């Protein structure tokens, strides 16, 4: 059974829709800025924040700002924007909602943040249900909270569930907001760079945090649009079984996820035209990915990371970056890895260092996360 991308939408520090993102990427503009907000962190820190005023303006007629959290508002906006470009019915029992988030409404447990919202919304299932109810979807939402691979998993799980025959369509929505909770945590790991991150670069010195939300609507029916159609092929997860906060030193876990993804898609390494990687710009992650890519015999395949533009958006990352890699396929263009200048990983990989046209059919998306988890997924043009 073929699973198609019916429509998509992104919000992040680059803007409130996918074309704003692509404009910024073409102009090599980053959304990561120095933020001096003592409520978020005692010192200035590099963050990719969304324009919250613009979001609230855009949702004023649709969403009561007192009834939903910031993350829920992002999700409601993103899903409705994606839905407006799709003929998939959101309120049908044949449509499943699948969510991806690492921390959800975590600010609800912060006693310093005044809120009138029920504290039950700190539970991810309540958050997801609030979003589903808004669209009158009758199904129990599926929620994945699996660190930074959640977004990639969510798209794969949605496709798998459509293939069971229980559903015809799925709305996949991934989101996370930047919070004091998360900034303080990553700072305690000393893993945040003082400048916008530099994936795979010899001078890379840590990640940049970002926030965002993206939606992908999947369907087992092909919807003709002006843009080239994209299908979702196989996906897989794996575990390094090595360390809970550092990746494998060999890259074998991620390699197993890639290998399984290729097998499920009936493809070989030579079929992959482009890799949209995780590329957080930490020393260990980028090194591990270079090893996994070589184990998979893909050292010559053009590879990039989008995190130099938007930061690491955690539970949103897998969905946002999948949408951007789908845009690559649709536009027949490879986008530069912003922040990258010189290869600084131990194994050779072909990092995309300028935006340029390319003949692309098949893209491998991959991600890795705390807990030793890895995920991979393949997108392909229909023709």
């Amino acid at each position, binding site marked *: 059974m073929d699973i198609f991308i019916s429509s998509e939408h992104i919000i992040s520090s680059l803007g409130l829709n996918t074309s704003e993102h692509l404009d910024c990427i073409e102009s090599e503009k980053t959304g990561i800025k120095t933020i001096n907000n003592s409520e978020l962190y005692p010192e200035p820190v590099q963050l990719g924040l969304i324009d919250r005023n613009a979001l609230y303006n855009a949702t004023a007629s649709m969403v009561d700002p007192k009834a939903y959290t910031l993350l829920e508002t992002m999700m409601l906006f993103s899903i409705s924007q994606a839905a407006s470009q799709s003929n998939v019915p959101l309120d049908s029992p044949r449509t499943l909602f699948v969510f991806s988030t690492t921390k959800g409404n975590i600010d609800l447990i912060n006693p310093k943040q005044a809120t009138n919202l029920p504290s039950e919304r700190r539970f991810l299932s309540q958050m997801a249900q609030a979003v589903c109810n808004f669209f009158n979807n009758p199904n129990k939402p599926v929620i994945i909270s699996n660190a930074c691979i959640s977004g990639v998993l969510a798209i794969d799980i949605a496709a798998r569930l459509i293939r069971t025959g229980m559903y015809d369509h799925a709305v996949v929505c991934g989101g996370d907001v930047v919070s004091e909770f998360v900034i303080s945590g990553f700072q305690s790991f000393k893993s945040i760079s003082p400048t916008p991150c530099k994936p795979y670069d010899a001078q890379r010195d840590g990640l940049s945090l970002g926030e965002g939300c993206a939606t992908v609507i999947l369907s087992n029916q092909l919807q003709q649009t002006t843009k080239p159609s994209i299908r979702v092929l196989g996906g897989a*997860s*794996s575990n390094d079984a090595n360390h809970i906060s550092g990746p494998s030193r060999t890259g074998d876990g991620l390699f197993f996820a890639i290998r399984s993804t290729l097998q499920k898609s009936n493809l070989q390494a030579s079929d992959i035209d482009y890799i949209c990687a995780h590329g957080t710009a930490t020393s260990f992650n980028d090194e591990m990915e270079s090893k996994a890519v070589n184990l998979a015999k893909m050292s010559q395949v053009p590879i990039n990371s989008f995190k130099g533009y938007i930061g690491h958006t955690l539970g949103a990352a897998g969905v946002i970056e999948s949408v951007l890699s789908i845009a690559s396929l649709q536009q027949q263009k490879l986008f530069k890895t912003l922040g990258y200048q010189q290869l600084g990983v131990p194994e050779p990989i072909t990092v995309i260092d300028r935006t340029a046209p390319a003949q692309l059919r098949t893209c491998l998306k991959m991600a890795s*996360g705390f807990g030793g988890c890895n995920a991979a997924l393949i997108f392909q043009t229909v023709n």
Partner: protein
Amino acid sequence: MNTKPYITSWCRIQSNKVCVNGDVQFTSNEALATDEFLKQAFKAMNKPYMKFYKMDLLSKLGFTAAEYLLQANPFSELLDPTEKGIVLSNRSASLETDTQHQQSIVDRDNYFPSPAVFVYTLPNIVIGEICIKNAIKGENIFFISDHFDTCFTAEYIGGLMSENRIKNCIFGWIELSDDGQFFDAFLAMASASENPLNKQLTAENLAALYNQQ
């Protein structure tokens, strides 16, 4: 071919008991705080593992359940690590540890965020701990739902194992309330072929085991 997998063993940890395949393996006579209960339950196995003491409560709960489960029914030695999977779920994600981290940052004059706590503010870390101990490198995922969804779980594990990659899969519900006081763990092993208990992995069979007193 769509043969359902089999449930080959299960472990339940709730109130003051650890049960495996319906038999009590450990019980505490007095009411203990969660941390103390789990420590005692784990120590009773007599299989020391120093990393246990660094884990947060959610990981201690899931790890202990997995240890008891695997003691009764280990993974087949013939399996490659990529043929072993793990699928967990709960309601409260990592809220118990999230509360600890939140407390470490709420007061700027008493500010002590720590990587040792922060790393556990993700529910899938318990999966990581179980994978490390048991060399599990296959498919793994953490779902969130209001209650243990036996229908979804049976369907999902069935689908996963029908791909013929995962031969043994640990799966279940590892729930810890955000105040750390209430816990409910149900872990089971699914096997593609072995069937010692004559129990197929169906929603009904799973619900019957989970609801057993």
